[in-house]
């Protein structure tokens, strides 16, 4: 301990480089001794310092290569990864749409629409049909067609009952039913 204290006294205003007790003049930092590629930052210009293992190439290191960076606890990382992907990516929520009597199905991106009104208008255009107006009591009674959807539990639900955001996260596919069949759904 005394030795260390003596070194501090000898230092004056300048940090002496080299092991304490030696008299070497100040020189470039100790990183010249370093063989390891990871730590040549001091020798590189500020501003061009790169992280990660591939410093020589000058290519930006991918974050994944740096262990423990960014400093997010694995507990938190795991939880985020378990999220359902559709709300995370911008790639859309495509669901199949079938219509009774139509020869083939279509696909639409639910993210494209802001509300039920837009969705139903789009469906009416796509299938050249009339779906009409939703009411809580009557469903789509009186319309030629009624839009239904299959939810996460596999149940067939009437489109319009739940708030829009809830709908788009739980809707797996759409089916436009003939009005006569849909009567059962509307009258509850």
């Amino acid at each position, binding site marked *: *301990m005394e*030795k260390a204290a003596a070194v501090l006294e000898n*230092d004056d205003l300048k940090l002496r480089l080299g092991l304490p007790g030696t008299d070497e003049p100040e020189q470039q930092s*100790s*990183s010249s001794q370093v063989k390891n590629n990871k730590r040549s930052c001091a020798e590189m210009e500020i501003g061009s310092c790169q*992280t990660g293992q591939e410093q020589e190439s000058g290519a930006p290191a991918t974050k994944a290569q740096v*262990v423990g960076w*960014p400093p997010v606890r694995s507990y938190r990382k795991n939880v985020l990864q378990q999220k359902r992907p559709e709300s995370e990516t911008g790639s859309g929520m495509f669901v199949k749409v079938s219509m009774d009597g139509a020869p083939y199905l279509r696909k639409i991106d639910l993210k494209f629409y802001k509300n039920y009104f837009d969705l139903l208008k789009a469906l009416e255009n796509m299938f050249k049909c009339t779906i009409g107006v939703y009411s809580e009591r009557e469903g789509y009674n009186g319309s030629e067609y009624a839009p239904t959807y299959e939810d996460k539990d596999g149940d067939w639900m009437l489109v319009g009952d739940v708030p829009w955001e809830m709908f788009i996260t739980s809707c797996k596919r759409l089916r436009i039913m003939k009005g006569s069949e849909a009567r059962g759904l509307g009258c509850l």
Partner: protein
Amino acid sequence: MAYSFPEEVLEHVFSFLSSDKDRNAVSLVCKSWYEIERWSRRRIFIGNCYAVSPEIMIRRFPEVRAVEIKGKPHFADFNLVPEGWGAYVRPWIRAMSAAYPFLEEIKLKRMVVTDECLELIARSFKNFEVLVLSSCDGFTTAGLASIAANCRNLRELDLGESEVEDLSGHWLSHFPDNCTSLVSLNMSCLGSEVSFSALERLVARCPNLRTLRLNRAVPLEKLSNLLHHAPQLVELGTGAYSAEIRSDIFSSLAEAFSVCKQLKGLSGLWDVVPAYLPAVYSVCSGITSLNLSYATIQSPDLVKLVSQCQNLQRLWVLDYIEDTGLEALAASCKDLEELRVFPSDPFGAEPNVSLTEQGLVSVSEGCPRLQSVLYFCRQMSNAALITIARNRPKMIRFRLCIIDPQAPDHLTHEPLDTGFGAIVENCKELRRLSMTGLLTDRVFEYIGTHAKKLEMLSIAFAGNSDLGLHHVLSGCESLRKLEIRDCPFGDEALLANAAKLETMRSLWMSSCSVTFGACKLLGRRMPSLNVEVMDERGPPDSRPESCPVEKLYVYRTVAGRRVDMTGFVWTMDEDAATARL
């Protein structure tokens, strides 16, 4: 001969001293005070489990009732400490099971706890009341079953964010029917579903239950049942906050929340379906702590909720809140003291949300009591940091993480030295600082000059030379914990400031430029320090002395060398060459 009080009087006086600092000061007065104090100390805090041994603790303090011990260094949270490094609680539990039969509380952080330890706790301490395992690992739900079954007076069981091997949810059913003492239960880190009826009965029969943090598997539809049994709850962690929307579920949930008039803290909130958030609106005005850091919902929904919580003091949230949401927060929550913003997509190359330095600036402007910040973002500027520093001179904790660790000021492309310099210069009470961004030795000069109250400093990918480290070690008078990764700091500053290390709890340096030779020198010179080298490449003496070590962990200790190290940890001391067990 000095007049002195009878022992009983002194003991009574000392019983009013709760802080360790006060008690330590008292024990230095004279021998008899030392003796009286040590027999009357009931609570022990051990910041580093290797700084002292169980035997030393027991020898000095024979009548302890509560022990808190911390193990692995902080960077273990980010996988920088190799598996098997240490921090085993077993020797502590074994020693205490013999010496402290009346032990009531055990709190552990970052320690390895086995089922055997839990069973030993359950068997040995008849009055056991409080078990807190924060970021621990090594045990399974079978160990929890022992605790539940045998601790008759259990008040608190808090598993924190521990990594538990989850065999089943059956452990909860081990609480006996006559257990009514629970005040706090935190099982949020567990994956398996517990028996809901067992949980419901447990909650119903514990009238003093104040804190209940459920795990994700508890369904939202059943939450109202639990709330009805515990309207006195002060802190609630929900399970997954999603369900098929049904008006009956919604209304019973809303009604259940409305009865919880004491609720101050809300957390959990995994998988939030925004349509269900209004169910909590009735309690928002009382909420002081809100953890939305698992709520993957967009800014408008976050804002709708947060702006109802006018008494909010603490908010943890994902960066989905964006700058606009933080502006709204600043406008509504004038009592805010702590803000943590976590990244929703930490590994993405491009930003996925519009959250910049501006959000933090808004909060620093609008929230006069803001004192604790953890902020993940993708860009920062000196101007923003200077503004934040000037706005909030009472800042105590400031942790900034820019996803690109060497990002410069995005406006001027300069290093962020002046920004962080402003932080330490203005915030004279700053106790904790984490920095990222492009930083030169200059920032360390500012820190050494101004950060006199700084106790913990975390540095990554910063600095140019040993001068940086020297500024910190020689200037920061209150420094207790220093953790450094990927900085060009080497031998000189470390050796020149060796004495400083005895005044600190610990120093961590990984991927720096400290050589094996310097580590050996430090270990030989400073017998009161354990100088541990971790190197998965093999024994450091199989490489030249000038070769830098992978990881270095230095801490002061009165317990001597560790004896429980695995194959990649070496202690440097007098016989440094063959240092490992």
